[in-house]
C-alpha cells in the first residue's frame, strides 16, 4: 500500500511530501526522502519488549511491570529528572510536563544541549523570524552560519531555500546567493557563492564587524577579523544589504561555540541592523523533528521553554542551574526518566557516569547509548510510523505526523499516561 504526503519524523525540516510503501507492519520503500529519512523509515533495529537489568545481563519484562517499576522509581526519588522529549509528539510532551509538576521534578528537553542559548538570546532581544515558506518564495540571499544543512537537514536547501523555485524567485539557484560561514569547509560550503572561514570561537567578532559595516563604519574594520579579510566582510555585507529579502539560518556551531547565547544575540542584532536597509530574517536550524514542539509545549504549560524545575511547587527556570547537564554534574538528581532522546551519546562524561549510578529509565523504540546506562528500557511505537501526533517544524509550524500502520507497540502517550495515573494515585 502506497501512502502519500507522509511526514518524516527525523530532523526539524519535517518534510511532509514523502511517499511511503507499506506491506503489513513493514515499510518497504520511501520516495522523496533523504538518506536520513530512508534510514528512519526502513531501519529495523527496534527493541522487542521492555527490558530490565538483571545482574550482568538483561531480562524481558511485561509492559505493566516495567511501567509500575518506573513509577515506583520516580515516586521514590527526591529530585527526579525527566529529560528528552524532542523525539516524541506534543500530546506525550504535555503529559510529561504534568508528570513533572506532580513529582516536583526537573523537566528538560534536548534544547539544553543545542539551541538553549538561542532561546536565551531570543528572550533578551526577540526573534525576527519567518516561516520557511516565506524564505522559499522570497529570499534572494540565504546565509547558513555555523550550520551544515547537507548533512544535518539534507533537504533544507532543495525544499525551502537555495534550489527551490519560489513565487517571487522563479529561477532559484541563479537568483539566490548562498553565503556559508563556518570554521571549516563542509559539504554545504561546496555549493556556496561565498564561503567565509572564521577562526574557531571568532563568530562574535565577525558578527560585530558586519554590524559595524552595515552601520556605515567601514573605516573601523581592521585588515582581518578572526581570519576573515576586510574585503570579504565588505563583500558579504554588501551582498546582504543589496538583497531584496535575506534569511540567516544558524546552527549549533554558533550556539555551542565560545560566546554561546551572546553570539546569537549578536546575530539577531545584525539582522535588526540589516532590516534598516532591506528585509532580513533569522532562524535556528532545529535538530530533532519535534524539539521546537517541546519548547512550545513546555512554554504554554509552564511559561518556560526548557530546564523547568518544579521542586518549589511552582515552575522555576534558571539555565545553568536547572539545566539537566548541571543537575547531573552536581550529582543532585537521584532518578532519571529519559524519553525519546539519547543523553548517553550527547552528554558530558561526568553526567553519563551519574546517569549510570542512579536508576535511569528510558522510553525509546531503539537500543542506543543511553540503554547501557539504564536500568529499564520501555520500547514504544515510532511517531510518524506506527504512532501519530503533533509536531512543530523548525519554523514553528505545527504539522500532524501520520500513522502508517497499526503496530504492536504502545505509543509514548499511553505509557506516560499509565505512569502518570500511578503517580497521581500514590500522591493523592
Amino acid at each position, binding site marked *: 500500500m502506497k501512502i502519500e504526503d507522509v511526514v518524516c519524523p527525523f530532523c526539524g525540516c519535517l518534510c511532509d511530501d514523502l511517499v511511503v510503501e507499506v506491506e503489513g507492519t513493514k515499510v518497504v520503500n520511501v520516495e*522523496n*526522502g533523504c538518506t536520513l529519512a*530512508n534510514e528512519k523509515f526502513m531501519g529495523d533495529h527496534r527493541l522487542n519488549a521492555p527490558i530490565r537489568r538483571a545482574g550482568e545481563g538483561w531480562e524481558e519484562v511485561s509492559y505493566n511491570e516495567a511501567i509500575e517499576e518506573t513509577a515506583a522509581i520516580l515516586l521514590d526519588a527526591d529530585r527526579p529528572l525527566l529529560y528528552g522529549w524532542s523525539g516524541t509528539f506534543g500530546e506525550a510532551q504535555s503529559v510529561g510536563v504534568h508528570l513533572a509538576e506532580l513529582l516536583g521534578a526537573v523537566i528538560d528537553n534536548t534544547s539544553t544541549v543545542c539551541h538553549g542559548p538561542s532561546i536565551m538570546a531570543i528572550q533578551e532581544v526577540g526573534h525576527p523570524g519567518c516561516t520557511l515558506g516565506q524564505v522559499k518564495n522570497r529570499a534572494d540571499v540565504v546565509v547558513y552560519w555555523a550550520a551544515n544543512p547537507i548533512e544535518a537537514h539534507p533537504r533544507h536547501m*532543495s525544499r*525551502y531555500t537555495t*534550489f*527551490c523555485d519560489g513565487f517571487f524567485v522563479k529561477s*532559484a*539557484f541563479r537568483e539566490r546567493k548562498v553565503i556559508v560561514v563556518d570554521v571549516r569547509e563542509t559539504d554545504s560550503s561546496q555549493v556556496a557563492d561565498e564561503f567565509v572561514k572564521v577562526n574557531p570561537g571568532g563568530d562574535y567578532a565577525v558578527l560585530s564587524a558586519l554590524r559595524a559595516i552595515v552601520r556605515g563604519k567601514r573605516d573601523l574594520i581592521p585588515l582581518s577579523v578572526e581570519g576573515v579579510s576586510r574585503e570579504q566582510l565588505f563583500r558579504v555585507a554588501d551582498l546582504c544589504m543589496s538583497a531584496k529579502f535575506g534569511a540567516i539560518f544558524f546552527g549549533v556551531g554558533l550556539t555551542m561555540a565560545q560566546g554561546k547565547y551572546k553570539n546569537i544575540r549578536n546575530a539577531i542584532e545584525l539582522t535588526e541592523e540589516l532590516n534598516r536597509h532591506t528585509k532580513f530574517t533569522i532562524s535556528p536550524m532545529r535538530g530533532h523533528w519535534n524539539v521546537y514542539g517541546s519548547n512550545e509545549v513546555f512554554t504554554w504549560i509552564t511559561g518556560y521553554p526548557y530546564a523547568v524545575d518544579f521542586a518549589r511547587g511552582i515552575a522555576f527556570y534558571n539555565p545553568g542551574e536547572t539545566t539537566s547537564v548541571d543537575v547531573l554534574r552536581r550529582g543532585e538528581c537521584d532518578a532519571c526518566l529519559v524519553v525519546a532522546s539519547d543523553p548517553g551519546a550527547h552528554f558530558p562524561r561526568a553526567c553519563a557516569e551519574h546517569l549510570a549510578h542512579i536508576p535511569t529509565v528510558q522510553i525509546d523504540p531503539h537500543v542506543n547509548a543511553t540503554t547501557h546506562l539504564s536500568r529499564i528500557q520501555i520500547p514504544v511505537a515510532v511517531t510518524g510510523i506506527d504512532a501519530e501526533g503533533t509536531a512543530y517544524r523548525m519554523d514553528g509550524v505545527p504539522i500532524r505526523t501520520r500513522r502508517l500502520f497499526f503496530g504492536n507497540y504502545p505509543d509514548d502517550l499511553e505509557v506516560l499516561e499509565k505512569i502518570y495515573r500511578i503517580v497521581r494515585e500514590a500522591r493523592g
Partner: protein
Amino acid sequence: MPLSLVYYAKEFLRGEWARKFLAAKTAPLEIPPYFRNYPELTGKTCTHHLFCMMACPAPGAIDVISTPEGWKPRIHIGHCIRCGLCVEACPNGVLSSGRILESMFYDNTRLSFSFRIDVDQTKCMGCGNCAVACPVNKLIDAQMSHGGRASTDDLLLKVSEGKCKVLHVEKCTGCKTCEHHCPNEAIRVARLLEAVHAPEEDI
C-alpha cells in the same frame, strides 16, 4: 672583423637583391574559404542547448553566456584549438568557421550526442539539490522544482530510497547543473559524442 663587414656588405648591397626585397609581390592576406578559423557568430538565435560546450574538447574554450539580447556562445581564443566541433554540434547554426557546415551537408555526416549520469551511491545524501535544480525536471514536473516532490516517474532524476536515482537518462541534455550543484561530489555527467554517417533524409 673588417673582412666580415666587407663580406656582408657584398652580400646585402647587391642591387638585384635590394630590388626584390622592396618590390616583392606576395599573395593577398585573406583567409581562404576552406580555412578553419576560430568560430564566429552567425547572428542566428542561440537556444541554450549547450551542445557546443559539451562537444568542445579544449577546457575553457567556449561558454554560453546570458546577454541582454539572449544567450550567446563566447569563444576564448587562447584556449580554442579550432577543431570546429562546436560548429558541427550546434543545432541552430549559431556558429560558423570555414566550410564545416557545407562539408557536413555534402558528406552526409552529423554528430550524435548521448549522456551518461553516474551517481556514487555511497557519497549521495539524497538532498535532492540535483533533481530540484535540473532544468529538464523543471519542464516535466513543476512540483519537483518547487520543493522536491516527484509526482511522476517521467523525470530525469529523482530521490528514491534516500538516494538520487536516474530514471530517464535519454532526456539529459548534458548541462551538468546536477554535477555543479551536488555538495557531495556524487554525480558525474559524461558526454558520449559520435560522428555518424547519416542517411540523407536525417540531415
